[in-house]
């Protein structure tokens, strides 16, 4: 038996790799992810930000777009990070690298990246005049609640992409996989496309579903007015009924009486969605699911990387 000599443990190795990633953030142009994320967030916010958190329709559309932007940013952060250095990792594994340390270092590094992107997104929201609820659901500040949600959505997507990057062997495969993942998130979010049966169950596996639920709760969706019915009636206002335009007359009457806002709120009250209720339980459970997904993705990444030695040379 040889003399048992201890080498750097998992925690120490995490420190080594975190330092490496942070240095490479500066040298390797990873910082470019920040302005890129900012541009994406800006496009989304400037298009849908006007009605975000104002009306139910605007909130749903805006939140959906914001969630998509967050997922996009998260995917882009890490989809190539592992597979592009797979051979290096394999060699380092041979030299004593613990895969859990490597993935944990990536998790911390990616969290910092996502945090920076979240701050940028919030600044852009503020510049674009998005009226974020001042009162939070979990914390006393709405901005903080929204920030935590955006961070968790981006980070969970980031971890999902990290998992994919750990499973696939080439950057080409990773980049080919990414659009499918994104489409899956969009289609099965349950926010816009009506899902039924088995498809309706799949939505519980998507980041977008839990992200939308969380943001709609924080945005107090159920307390917002609904404009869709009013707009539809306006669209039919010139409908001629035996020489009369009853809808137009009714609309004018409602406006004159100052009942419009009451009508919109009444519509909103009848369009409430239970999972969008602004309760601490709702928001915390959404955050909890996203965190759970993050852990599952990270574990899957570690397991996938443990098999890196099986790669053919």
């Amino acid at each position, binding site marked *: 038996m040889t003399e048992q000599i201890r*080498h750097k443990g998992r925690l*120490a190795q995490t420190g*080594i790799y975190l330092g490496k990633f942070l240095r*490479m953030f500066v*040298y*390797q142009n990873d910082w470019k992810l920040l302005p890129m994320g900012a541009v994406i967030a800006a496009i989304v916010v400037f298009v849908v930000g006007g009605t975000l958190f104002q009306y139910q329709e605007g909130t749903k559309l805006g939140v959906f777009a914001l969630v998509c932007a967050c997922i996009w940013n998260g995917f882009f952060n890490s989809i190539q990070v592992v597979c592009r250095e797979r051979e*290096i990792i394999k*060699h380092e594994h041979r*030299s*004593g690298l613990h895969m859990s340390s490597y993935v944990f270092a990536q998790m911390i590094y990616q969290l910092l990246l996502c945090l920076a992107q979240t701050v940028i997104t919030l600044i852009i929201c503020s510049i674009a005049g998005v009226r974020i609820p001042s009162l939070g659901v979990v914390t006393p500040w709405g901005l903080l609640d929204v920030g935590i949600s955006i961070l968790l959505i981006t980070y969970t997507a980031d971890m999902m992409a990290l998992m994919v990057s750990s499973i696939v062997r080439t950057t080409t495969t990773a980049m080919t996989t990414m659009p499918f993942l994104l489409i899956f998130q969009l289609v099965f979010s349950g926010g816009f496309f009506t899902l039924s049966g088995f498809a309706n169950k799949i939505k519980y596996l998507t980041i977008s579903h839990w992200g939308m639920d969380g943001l709609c709760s924080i945005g107090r969706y159920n307390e917002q007015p609904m404009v869709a019915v009013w707009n539809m009636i306006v669209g039919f206002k010139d409908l001629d009924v035996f020489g009369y335009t009853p809808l137009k007359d009714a609309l004018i009457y409602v406006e004159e009486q100052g009942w419009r806002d009451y009508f919109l709120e009444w519509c909103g009250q009848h369009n409430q969605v239970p999972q969008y209720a602004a309760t601490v339980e709702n928001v915390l459970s959404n955050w909890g699911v996203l965190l759970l997904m993050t852990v599952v993705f990270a574990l899957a990444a570690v397991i996938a990387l443990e098999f890196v030695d099986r790669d053919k040379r």
Partner: protein
Amino acid sequence: MAAFTDILSSVYTELLDFLLFSLGLWMVFGKLKWKQRWMAWVPGLRIAALGRSVQLTREGILCGIMEVVSFVVGYFSKGEITDRFTLFLSLAMLVLLVLLVVYRLRIYVRLLRVFGMKKRWILVWIFFDWLVLMIIGFGKKFQPVELPEPEDWEAGTAPAEISGAENVHFRPAAESGLSVDLFERTAKDFGKTHYLLKDISLDIPKGSLVLLLGGSGAGKTTLVNAIIGYEKAKARMTLNGADIYKDYAHMKYKIGFVPQKNLMRGNDTVLQTVDDAAELRLPSAVSTAERKSRVQEVMDLLGLSAGASGLVCKKSGGQLRRISIAMELVSDPELFVLDEPDSGLDGVIAREIFSKLRAIADEGRIVIVITHTPDRVIDLFDKVIVLARDSGRVGRLAFYGSPQEARDFFGKETMEDVVMSVNSKEQGGEGLAEHYIERYAALAAATEGGAAT
């Protein structure tokens, strides 16, 4: 009645197609001297056998599996899309069929090549596969030409019988230095055992710079991976008396392996790259000051101190190789293995690197180097290992001794000529591998200690 006639007609057509295909294949197997000709009549198995007979085993087996799976899936879905499950099955089937067509095409193209036929026959094949098989099978004009060189992974299914080769093993492991006693290194592929290396036994003393020579596919990297315990073989490998395989978790820190590629992150500084490698590889008991000192020592030895703060990606090929070496050397390994450290480097830089390796060996370490251009630095080496592929394409030991002894043994002046003498004729060599393997085995067995020197 009409429906019954339709079914009967469909069955007849299927049966006729099956009979014609099988008969044609049976004849083809005969021409290919395939022993299990009956396989031509078993669906699934026959395409696997055809693939194997034209040395595309992997494609053949996958085709066979896909044929069976598609039959089963087709049977259960009954060819109709009635619900989401059958829709999913149909999509899976579609993907499967595309793969099946691609693999089948590969096999057919290879078969055409084996029979010296033009590729345009593939067009006929797509529509009437049985017809082409019948033409090849019954046509006297079509006879198999020499089969192409098999894929590497197909090598070594039957090692050549070399008298006395197994006698090299009966010796105790050396207490000092590296002791290699490899019985065989095999790999499984689709349940079949492939021999990659066989009967390699040698002792390398401390402080030796050893050259590992061999033609392409001789098993140099496989041997190196087996020695360092990364890909274990049926062997006993000891380093200074400690068993590498049994205590791999600790022994791996005593072994440095520099791969052929420069595996490092370009966007980090040279100093940090080497320092991180040191932190990962050195024992935890080593203090920061000791580590920094060791890093500096290695950087100085390899001439990397000047550009230490520069980014790795900005360095030249020679510098990158030296960084690779530094990353492994920094842990002070007892055994140091390098796979083509001079790859892509000019003579001056290569000589410089090998001089550094000589200095490393002189510190009491064992350094094993694989290189394809040995003659420009052969004067620096203490020992030469020559690997050669026998007729069964299994890597074996053809020689182990000093460079001068190698010249005498092979009757050649240069190491490149030595390699050519053991390379197969297809590789442009003299094809004398088995002669030298046998001769060396006899010499080694006759010499006390196993190795001839």
